[in-house]
Structures are given as C-alpha cells and as structure tokens.
C-alpha cells in the first residue's frame, strides 16, 4: 500500500471524531437529498401517469337530446379520441349508522370496454353484478362499506337498499378521504332504478391533438356547432383543468417543498464538510510544509487530501444511497396512499443513482476547493511559519486580555472574531436553517390562519342542501321540532364539488344566491367589498372563478350566464376561500332573473350550542328527520366538518412542511455542533496555556459555552431576518399553489416556531460547546500544550 494512501487513512483514524462527523453529515445529506430525489422522481411521474392512464375526459356535455346524436359518426371524427355516456347522479348513502355522505353514482355503458375515464377492478366482482354497485377503494377508509354490504341510500325522498359487489380503483377521483364523497359505478338500468334519472344525458369526451385547455375550448366550439345543426341543445358543459388530477396541486406543493429542502440539506452537509476540511487543513499546514520541503509535489499533496475526501464520500454514499432509495420509496408510498394513486415506478433509472454518486463525490471536493487550493499552493516557507490558527494581530491582544484577569465576554468575542471566516460560515448555515425552519412554521401558521378565517366565514352550523327549490316554510317545517336549532335561513346554494349539481352558471361555476345583508357569511376579501344591495345587479366572485372573468377589475361590468340567460352584472369584490369556483349574488335579484317565486334550496341552520359534539349530535337528528320524512336532499354538511375537510386537504402539506423544516433545522444544528466541536478541539493547546496561566476548568468551560451562545444567538437573529422575506414569499407562493393564481396567504409570524428555534439553537449551542470543552479540560496541562 502506498504511503501516501496510508497517510490519508491514518488522518481518518487520527481525526476519527471529525471524520465520523463528516461522514455523518454527508450521509445525512445524501440520505435526505437522495430520498427526496428518489421520491421526486417517482411521484412527479406517477400521479400524472396514473391519471393519464385512465384517459381522463377533457369535456363533459349535458343534454336531453342525445338520442339525436349519431354516436358512430361522432367516433369517426378525427378530432375525437374517445366519447362515452357517463351519467352521474348525486344520491346519499349511509356509511355508518345515521351518518350519510353524498353518493356520486355513475352509469357505465360497458364495464369491459372502458375507453375514457377508466377505472380498475380491485376486489369483489368486476363488472359488478346487474343491480349492484362497485365503489372506489378509497371509500373504504371513510365508511363501513365493503364488498357484500347492503347500505341504505336516499333517492328522490325514498330509502333504497343498495348492494355493493365490487371495489374498484379510480385514479381520476379526488381521494375521498379528503373530499368525503362515495364514488359508485353501476350498469345503466340500475342507475335509472336508483336515481330515477334517464341515462345518456351526459357525454364525456377526449380529443386528439389537444395540448391545452384553450385547445379543448376551440374543439368544443366546433363540436357545439355540429351539435346545434343536429338539433342537440346543450344544457351545460364543463372543461376540467387540462389532463390534471384534481389534487395535483397538493402533489405540486409537496414536490416543491421536497425539492428545495433536498437542495438545502445537501448544501448544508457540504458546508459541514468544508468546515471539517478547513479545520483539518489549518491543523496540518505545517505538515504540508514539511512534506513539500522533503520533495512532495503539488500532485502529491492533492492526492493525500483527495483520498481523504473521497474515502469520506465513498463511505457516506455506501450508507446513504441505499437508505435514500428505501426511504424515498416509502415516502412515495405514503404520499401515494394519501392521494390514492398507485406507484407505477418499480425500477429507478440508473441516472438517479448516478446523480447521487457523482454529486456525493464531487460536491464535497468543490466545497473544499478553497482549502485544497490553499494546501496545494501554500509556499513551504509560509506553511512552516504557520502555527495553526491565524496568529496575526489578535493573538497578542487576547494574550493581553488573559493576563489582565480575563474578561470572559471580550475574550469569547475576540476568539470568534479570530476565526471570522469559519464562524461566519457556521452562522450563515445555522441562520439559513433557522430561516427555513421559521419560514416553514410561518407558512404553516398562515395556512392555519386561513383555516380559521374560512371557518369564521361560515357563521352557520349546519347546511342542508335540498334537491329541489321549495318555499322556505315548506323547507324548514320538518325541522321546527328540533329544539337545538335556534334559527334557519333560506338560500339558493350548494356546497363544494356538489355545488354545480345544485345551482350553477351555464359554464359550471357554482352560484350562491342569498340575502345580501345576511349575517351568516363573513368573507375573507382579496379585493373589493361585499354586495351592497344597490339597484343594479352586482356579484362577488371567489378566487377560483377569477380565471373565468380575467382580467379582474372591480367595479367593471361582466356577463354572467344564470338561469339560462346572459346578463350583465357589476363585479364588486373577490373573496378567498378553499372551494370550487363560485359567484355570489343577492337572492331577490336572482329570483327576479330566474322568475322564481319565494323559493329556496338550502337551509342554513344556527344552533344554540355551537360546540363540536353538539353540532354532530344535532346533525344526526336532522339526518333522521330527513330519512323518516323522505326529504330529497343533496348534501348535509356541518361547518365543523367542512372546516375539517379543508383542513384534511391542507394537512398533508402542513405535515410535509413541518417534517422537512425539522430536517433542515437538525442538519444545520449538527453543522453548528460540529463547528463548535472543531473550535474546541483545535484549541486544546490554547486551553493548556490558559490553564497554565491560572484559568480554572470552570472558567475555560464558561469561555467556550459563551462562544457557543454568542454564535447561536447571532444565528437566530440572522435567521429571523432571513425568515421575514422568505415567509412573505412563501405565503404568496403556497397561496398561489394551493388556492389558485394571485391568491396569497396572509403573512403571519409563528411564535411557536420562534420559541422552538430559540430553544433548539441555544440548547445546541450549549451542548455543542459544553461537551467538547468538558472533554478538553480533562487532558492534563502538559498534554494540552504538546497537542498538535
């Protein structure tokens, strides 16, 4: 074995603790960064792959005239990739005793010949036996339904027993764990039997050669003309986001967080490595001088330290990479199960491994380049004159201080100033960690603030959406006997994704018509104000509807198509809410337009006792009344449950933010720990000198702990400064990602995050300097002075 190689290995042995730290840091970097890379690769591909494999529909059209449509002819059209009738009715189904959820019932032309919006068998029968239904697999998590259960369904005011004979997987649906719907699929005859509705009234279409939602709109315009010519009157149409899974935004957000955090973890572990290399070089400068004096060329020196670095990398990669693959896959599995999609990626491509390996070897070298350069280029003379740390001007002043009865503060401060470069790097890394961590907490806080706002915006406790519009007295009469309800107000409204089935504009924007001066809605305004009750027709939109009306100018007239008419109305405000696209108008104005009498479809109930338990208890009472009296209902939701649904949508993002911020904080804390450790190790000799001139072990420890505290305190301060702009940006960025374009969240400062940061950082600063210092003072003065 070459002596040069031997020397590298001995350096590893001798600097065992530092080397171990470097390996640990790099391993964590590779593990963290690598697993996120692996999961990024898997997830960024698989959710959309799952979705696209189902051949999702790009357009849905509703009409009662499809009997006039020549389907064969439609299939012949070159621009049509696939078209099927897929009617959908919304019923209600009992998922647990007295707990009902909306049932989205789809009629399927032929289970064995799905050409669009496909789904796959999972358990039980496929196709489901005639007269039975198959439900989506994610439904099992929110109900007691399963293969062979018979459940009660409410349809047209009647209770019908439905049998479940199969479980399917429909990657095109939003996970029901978040949306709280039951998705069911059945044959056409059974669909009509259960829903009382005719089939072939809704056509779903997928086009050839379309690349954007705009292309789809154009293709639809052409098709609409042809349909009109055939005498087919289109009642409503819907163009979903182009080939995008309904919950892609969640995945995008998670991937975004993943990406940036993995990058940061990597960078931080690099900074750690470079600090360790720096410390090693500082202590070996004289050795480098000697080696050069006895004939070592630059290449020799380079080889020694490269061997050292590359060995660290090799070990770290050997440990970190398999861990990265394992946890990356597990993490993807977890996200996939939450979002209800299947992992399709079985083998990772070689380039993923190659990226990790190459980065694992090259980045530490790049980050140590300044030190390597210095080691290679330093002249023999300078190297030999080097006594370890920058002796320079401050050395003499610190000696002066120590002989003058040792003011710990100023000595600690001078010591830090002496290693300006390294301490600056330590502080910046730590500050970056603190900054990211705080940002994570602040954005989290912004989201919970948003949740609180959206819960506050609903001042009612229960909302019952009826299937038909009826006079208010008729609607509320059945519930007059429930004493717990203090008041009921009637609206024209729907909720969430069933909104459009209740009341909507012609292009499927949800419509809410309520008294403009009601007290049950307290919205969170992005722009403008609430309806004023002015003579002229006014409307308010939510941010999801913004793209339909772009550009948004408050006070401007827009055309809205309601109740089959195109009407000009003045836009007065835009609100922010976690919901589908919606517009709000005054109920009296709507009735005038729709020529409705004094009728409503929604009951907004306020309870005497608004506590969670009571709300749910009253909800069950309401459910019983509905079941017994055969009231036709689309949806019943309590404000508390709705808030929970919104929370469940955001929770996965909140959790990811929290876990990953913690990862960053711990890596940076480790960085600080090692920097402080190095700081003490390097100064073993100085400790000897201090003690020789009379410093007690206590004083020495206090000196180092003081330094540790100063570094942590400064890091926290810097980190907070960094967190402010980062959090403001994060609130904007995540708002846009989660709620839609131009919808920032409000900036908030999380005191909890701040407290955690402060405690963790100071504790780490303390431990990281206290431990090595206690160890260092155990060495005898004589040994300490002789320490190289």
């Amino acid at each position, binding site marked *: 074995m070459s*002596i*040069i190689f031997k020397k590298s290995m001995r350096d590893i*042995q001798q600097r065992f603790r530092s080397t171990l730290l470097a390996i640990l840091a790099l391993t964590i970097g590779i593990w963290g960064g690598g697993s996120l890379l692996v999961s990024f690769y898997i997830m960024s591909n698989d959710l959309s792959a799952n979705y696209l494999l189902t051949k999702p529909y790009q357009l849905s059209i509703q009409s009662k005239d499809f009997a006039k449509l020549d389907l064969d002819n439609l299939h012949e059209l070159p621009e049509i990739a696939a078209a099927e009738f897929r009617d959908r009715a919304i019923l209600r189904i009992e998922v647990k005793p007295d707990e009902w959820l909306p049932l989205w019932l789809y009629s399927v032309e032929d289970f064995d010949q799905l050409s669009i919006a496909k789904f796959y068998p999972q358990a039980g029968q496929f196709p489901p036996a005639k007269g039975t239904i198959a439900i989506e697999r994610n439904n099992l998590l929110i109900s007691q339904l399963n293969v062979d259960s018979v459940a009660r369904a409410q349809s047209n005011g009647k209770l019908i027993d439905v049998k479940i004979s199969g479980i399917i997987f429909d990657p095109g649906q939003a996970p029901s764990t978040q949306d709280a719907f039951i998705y069911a699929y059945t044959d056409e005859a059974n669909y009509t039997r259960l829903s009382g509705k005719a089939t072939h009234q809704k056509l779903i279409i997928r086009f050839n050669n379309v690349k954007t939602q705009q292309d789809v709109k154009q293709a639809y315009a052409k098709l609409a003309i042809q349909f009109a010519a055939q005498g087919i009157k289109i009642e409503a149409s819907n163009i979903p986001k182009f080939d995008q899974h309904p919950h892609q935004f969640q995945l995008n957000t998670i991937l975004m967080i993943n990406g940036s955090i993995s990058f940061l973890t990597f960078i931080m572990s690099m900074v750690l490595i470079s600090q360790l290399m720096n410390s090693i070089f500082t202590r070996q400068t004289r050795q480098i001088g*000697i080696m*050069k*004096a*006895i*004939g070592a060329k630059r*290449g020799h020196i380079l080889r020694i330290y490269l061997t050292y670095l590359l060995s660290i990398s090799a070990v770290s990669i050997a440990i970190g990479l398999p861990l990265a693959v394992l946890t990356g896959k597990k993490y993807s599995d977890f996200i996939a199960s939450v979002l209800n999609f299947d992992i399709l990626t079985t083998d990772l491509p070689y380039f993923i491994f190659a990226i990790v390996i190459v980065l694992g070897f090259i980045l530490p070298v790049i980050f140590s380049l300044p030190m390597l350069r210095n080691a290679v280029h330093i002249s023999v*003379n300078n190297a030999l004159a080097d006594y370890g740390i920058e002796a320079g001007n401050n050395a003499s002043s610190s000696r002066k201080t120590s002989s003058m009865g040792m003011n710990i503060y100023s000595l600690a401060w001078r010591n830090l100033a002496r290693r300006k470069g390294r301490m600056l790097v330590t502080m910046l890394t730590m500050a970056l960690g603190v900054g990211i961590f705080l940002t994570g907490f602040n954005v989290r806080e912004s989201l919970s603030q948003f949740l609180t706002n959206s819960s506050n915006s609903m001042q009612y406790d229960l909302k019952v959406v009826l299937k038909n519009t009826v006079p208010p007295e008729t609607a509320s009469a059945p519930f007059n006997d429930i004493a717990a309800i203090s008041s009921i107000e009637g609206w024209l409204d729907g909720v969430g994704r069933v909104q459009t089935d209740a009341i909507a504009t012609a292009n499927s924007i949800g419509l809410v018509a309520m008294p403009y001066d009601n007290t049950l809605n307290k919205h969170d305004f992005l722009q403008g104000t609430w309806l004023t009750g002015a003579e002229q027709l006014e409307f308010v939109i939510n941010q999801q509807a913004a793209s339909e009306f772009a550009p948004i100018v408050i006070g401007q007239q827009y055309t809205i198509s309601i109740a089959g008419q195109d009407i000009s109305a003045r836009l007065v405000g835009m609100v922010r809410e976690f919901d589908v696209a919606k517009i709000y108008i005054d109920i009296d104005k709507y009735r005038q337009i729709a020529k409705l009498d004094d009728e409503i479809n929604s009951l907004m109930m306020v309870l005497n006792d608004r506590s969670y338990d009571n709300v749910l208890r009253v909800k069950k009472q309401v459910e019983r009344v509905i079941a017994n009296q055969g009231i036709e209902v689309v949806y019943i939701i309590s404000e508390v449950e709705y808030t929970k649904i919104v929370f469940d949508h955001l929770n996965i993002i909140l959790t990811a933010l929290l876990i990953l911020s913690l990862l960053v904080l711990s890596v940076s804390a480790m960085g600080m720990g090692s920097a402080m450790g190095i700081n003490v190790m390097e100064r073993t000799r100085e400790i000897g000198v201090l003690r020789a001139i009379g410093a007690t072990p206590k004083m020495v420890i206090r000196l180092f702990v003081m330094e540790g505290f100063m570094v942590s305190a400064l890091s926290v301060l810097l980190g907070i400064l960094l967190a402010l702009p980062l959090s403001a940006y994060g609130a904007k960025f995540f708002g846009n990602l989660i709620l839609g374009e131009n919808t920032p969240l409000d900036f908030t400062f999380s005191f909890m995050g701040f407290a955690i940061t402060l405690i963790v950082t100071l504790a780490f600063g303390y431990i990281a300097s206290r431990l090595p210092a206690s160890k260092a003072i155990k060495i005898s003065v004589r040994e300490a002075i002789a320490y190289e």
Partner: protein
Amino acid sequence: MNIIQLNNVSKSFEQGGQSFTALSNVSLTITKGEYVALIGKSGSGKSTLLNLITGIDHPTGGHITVADTDIHKFGESSLAAWRGKNIGIIFQFFQLIPTLTIIENILLAMEFVNVIPKDQRQNRAKNLLTQVGILEQANKFPSALSGGEQQRAAIARALANKPEILVADEPTGNLDSATAKSIKAIFTDLVAAGTTVIIVTHEDISGTDFDQIIQLKDGQIQPHNSTVSEMK
C-alpha cells in the same frame, strides 16, 4: 568543484509597508564534499540564507546556483522534485509526520521523489535507521520517541533519496551535549562519505573540523577570526 555559488544575493521582507533587509550582497562558494558551519547571532539571517539555498524562499536580488542549476527558475512543483532529489533538509523541530511511523516517514520521502526503486526502499530505509542507530524504533510513531531520536529519524529521512547536499538548521539546538555529540558524529561520517553538509549552529565550533565557517552579522558575511586553514 563548486556545488553552491551565491553572487550578491539579497533578501528583504516587506512588512506593513516597511522593507526589512535580512541579507544584503551575500556572495559565497561551497565546494562539493565540504563541511560548512553557518554561525551568527540570533536574527543575523542564518535561516534566511539556508532557505534561499534550498529554494524554500526566493532572493530579492542576486544569483544562486546549486548543483549546476539556477534553482529559482523552477516552478513550485519541479522545485519540490529537484529539492527532494538533491537536498536533504533537517529542521530544528516539528519535522516528522505524526500520523506515520518512523520508517513510513522515510518511505514517504522516497515515494515523493521516486528515485529509489520500489523494491529497494524498505531495505534502504532500514539501513538508514541502522546508520543513525534507531532501527528498533522503526515502527513507532514520532510522539513515542525522545527529542534526540526524533532528530536522528529526521536525518535518516533527509538522507532517504541519496542527496548530494545535507542542510540542517540548528539540528542539535535543544539536545543534551552527549546526544548532540553523537548526532554530529553522523554528520562527520556523511562528509567522509562525500556528502556536502551545511549546518547552522549556535554552539562553540572550536575543535570541530569544518572546512568552511560562514559568519553572518546583520545580514552580511563577516570575516571569521580563525581561518579554516588555521583550524585544520
């Protein structure tokens, strides 16, 4: 035959905008196989002069030729290679690589310079250790050796690549007189074997058979009171 030739060599240091002249107009000649003593008070420029001869430092004026080579024309790496091959250097303290054993320290020097064939290195290293009398310490680490033993190890390492010139800066400075004596004996043996040896010393040089004594004072060569011929 001249092995080292200095013509009007000067060296000044720039520090804090001020220039300090450590050597001015030094000219000297050393012939092959000479045993040379470099003496003078502390700060007179002895180490500076040695550093110029070994190429560790560069002169600010004048010319230096060592073994027929204008050493300051070399780049850093070729200079290191040349030095490793032609000059053995012994410092006053801290010279052995602490993470390598004594024999490995010697092998490292051979590996750097690569003039001794690989299969002879182990044997040669042992012979050198025998020559300086510390063969039994071969596999110990430097920290386990006494100061005198470390100095011997450093001499063995300096001789690793059969250099023509051996340069030592106060090699016996902090050794007891008996140990110092035995180390000096090694030098005389080397001179006898044809090596040119230059040592810096503070000690009394009477009674030592130097071929040339160079005395420095404030960076200039002083005529020495006893000529070489007188001493012989």
